[in-house]
């Protein structure tokens, strides 16, 4: 089977796709990927990939950007050439792991071209219906749309979903990953980089795609100085070319904090900066060799997950550690909201991870491996309830208990609103009402439902599941659509009534959704 995987996002997302690509290859698939040229390096070392294609935005857009009128046709021709070249590969399946409008249209275009060749292909991930509306063909992508992507759309910082992105990607692709699918490149270059590091050291990644996801230079300087002093291990600074200036400020801060760098420029240096000096393949080797990686929310955390290096992840609450946190066994995550954790807190945790001390851990999460069991209970009851609700809706686990009066009141109101919708749908079906009026009332039902969920955000997962399933229905004759709406509403009512009845039934209800 020949498969094209679309991954048009950044470095970290590409690394998180590797386990899926390895799993597909285990099934003897010939896997090609479509990536952006700027992030091609992140795909190059993956053993699961047979061929890399590029969506060269600059080549495609340059003509129309240089001259909006005369450049339009050349831009369309450049795009057509890419689509033609992809279509001529004659894929059996397209797996879109990008979750963007652009990627959905590319998938659709390739589907249409294959259809016109009378060789229809299978798709997973976002695509389009024939009328241009968004199509979400598989349940895992619908889960992503409803319970993961909404955070970016609404600006929510509440990490409700607890499935990691690599495992979600695998589910969308229809493969079951095994622990061995988390591995780095086996190229001689990565091995050389690994062997080229002569001693044990702690790696520190100083950057991230967004400064809010990492520490500032002064803070890193303090952390690094204490790490060197307390663990006796050298520290290696890692980062991209754009972070060289930051690395210099960190080195200066290390000295200000009383640690001489012993700077001979080689491996005897106590704090060695390789910032801007490594390529992606070398990073794999270096991180594999490191005893510990200390990092914010960055692509290097994903590299460490692949090569099995423990990570002390300082995770900003703007990012979901469940989704993109480290996967390697023994990793720990310290969460922070406003100010980053104090240097002493970070260093004590690192010492504890290295086994040097028995300090009590302050970590918010301990990672037990890439395919660890999903954490059901934390010290955040509110988040636990919402996750258990998601789990009940999508995985058929018992519905969570909550007899709070406020929640029960909102549920009661939601059921009333639902009965209005059902009444209107029946009228539409039996042709006994003014269709335009009914359409207005149905729109109002959606608005009121959203308002109810705004008033009780814990019910958000249900509303997002319900509205996503409606989007998934796609264009069809009105009579069929009404029937599908009614069926879906029946499933919604099962969920709502189960939550309402929990008080008397005392839980244990299994939903089959």
């Amino acid at each position, binding site marked *: 089977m020949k498969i094209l995987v679309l991954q*048009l*996002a*950044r470095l970290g*997302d590409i690394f998180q796709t590797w386990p899926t690509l390895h799993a597909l290859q285990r099934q003897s698939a010939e896997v090609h990927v479509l990536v*952006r040229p*700027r*992030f091609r390096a992140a795909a190059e070392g993956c053993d699961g990939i047979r061929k890399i294609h590029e969506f060269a*935005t*600059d080549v*495609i*857009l340059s003509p*129309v*950007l*240089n001259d*909006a*009128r005369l*450049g*339009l046709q050349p*831009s*369309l021709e450049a*795009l*057509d050439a890419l*689509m033609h070249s992809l279509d001529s590969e004659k894929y059996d399946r397209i797996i879109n792991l*990008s*979750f*963007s*409008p*652009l*990627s*959905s*249209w*590319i998938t*659709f*275009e390739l589907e*249409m*071209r294959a259809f016109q060749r009378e060789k229809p292909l299978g798709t997973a991930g*976002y695509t*389009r219906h*024939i*009328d*241009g*509306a*968004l199509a979400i063909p598989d349940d895992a992508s619908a889960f*992503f*749309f*409803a319970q*993961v*992507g*909404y955070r*970016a*759309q609404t600006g929510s910082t509440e990490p409700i979903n607890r499935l990691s*992105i690599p495992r979600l990607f695998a589910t969308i692709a229809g493969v079951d990953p095994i622990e061995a699918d988390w591995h780095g490149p086996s190229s001689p270059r990565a091995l050389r980089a690994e062997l080229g590091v002569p001693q044990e050291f702690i790696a520190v990644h100083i950057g991230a795609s*967004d400064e809010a996801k990492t520490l500032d230079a002064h803070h890193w300087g303090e952390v690094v100085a204490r790490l060197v002093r307390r663990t006796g291990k050298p520290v290696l600074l890692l980062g991209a070319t754009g972070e060289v200036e930051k690395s210099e400020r960190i080195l200066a801060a290390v000295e200000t904090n009383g640690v001489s760098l012993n700077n001979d420029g080689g491996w005897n240096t106590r704090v060695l900066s390789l910032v801007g000096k490594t390529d992606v393949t070398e990073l794999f080797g270096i991180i594999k060799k490191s005893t510990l990686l200390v990092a914010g929310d960055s692509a290097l955390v994903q590299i460490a997950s692949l090569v099995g290096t423990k990570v002390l992840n300082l995770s900003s609450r703007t*990012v979901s550690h469940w989704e*993109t946190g480290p996967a390697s066994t023994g990793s720990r995550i310290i969460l922070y909201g406003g100010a980053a954790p104090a240097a002493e807190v970070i260093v004590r945790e690192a010492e504890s991870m290295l086994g040097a001390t028995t300090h009590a851990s302050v970590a918010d999460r301990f990672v037990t491996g890439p395919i660890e069991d999903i954490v059901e209970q934390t010290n955040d009851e509110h988040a636990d309830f919402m996750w258990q609700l998601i789990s009940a809706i999508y995985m058929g686990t018992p519905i969570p208990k909550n007899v709070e009066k406020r929640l029960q009141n909102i549920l009661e109101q939601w059921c009333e609103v639902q009965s209005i919708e059902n009444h209107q749908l029946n009228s539409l079906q039996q042709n006994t009402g003014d269709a335009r009026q009914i*359409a207005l009332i*149905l*729109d109002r039902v959606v608005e009121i439902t959203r308002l109810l969920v705004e008033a009780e955000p814990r019910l958000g997962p249900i509303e997002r599941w319900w509205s996503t399933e409606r989007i998934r229905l796609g*264009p069809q004759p009105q009579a069929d*659509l009404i029937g599908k709406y009614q069926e879906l509403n029946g499933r919604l009512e099962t969920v709502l009534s189960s939550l309402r009845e929990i008080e008397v039934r005392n839980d244990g209800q299994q939903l089959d959704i």
Partner: protein
Amino acid sequence: MKNRSEVTLAVPLNTGEHAMPDSFVVSEEAKTETEKRMLLFRLSDAAMRIREEADLIRRTGFTDQASRLMRILGEAVEEQHAALKSDRQSK
């Protein structure tokens, strides 16, 4: 029930952080604030030019390859526009 065949560019999907586009222009072409501003103008011009073709899309629908390619191009432009705007706002 909404009109599903409405033609708009850059339908806001649940893109998520995982789908944030790179802005090739920010890293490779437009480094100064003036360059970025000029590029935003050029992206806006291109988006407007593509929107002018919305009538074609309405007439032919998405069974027509030209309409689909136009739509992909429109999304690519909108994506770059959004990336550049977000890049400027975050600084």
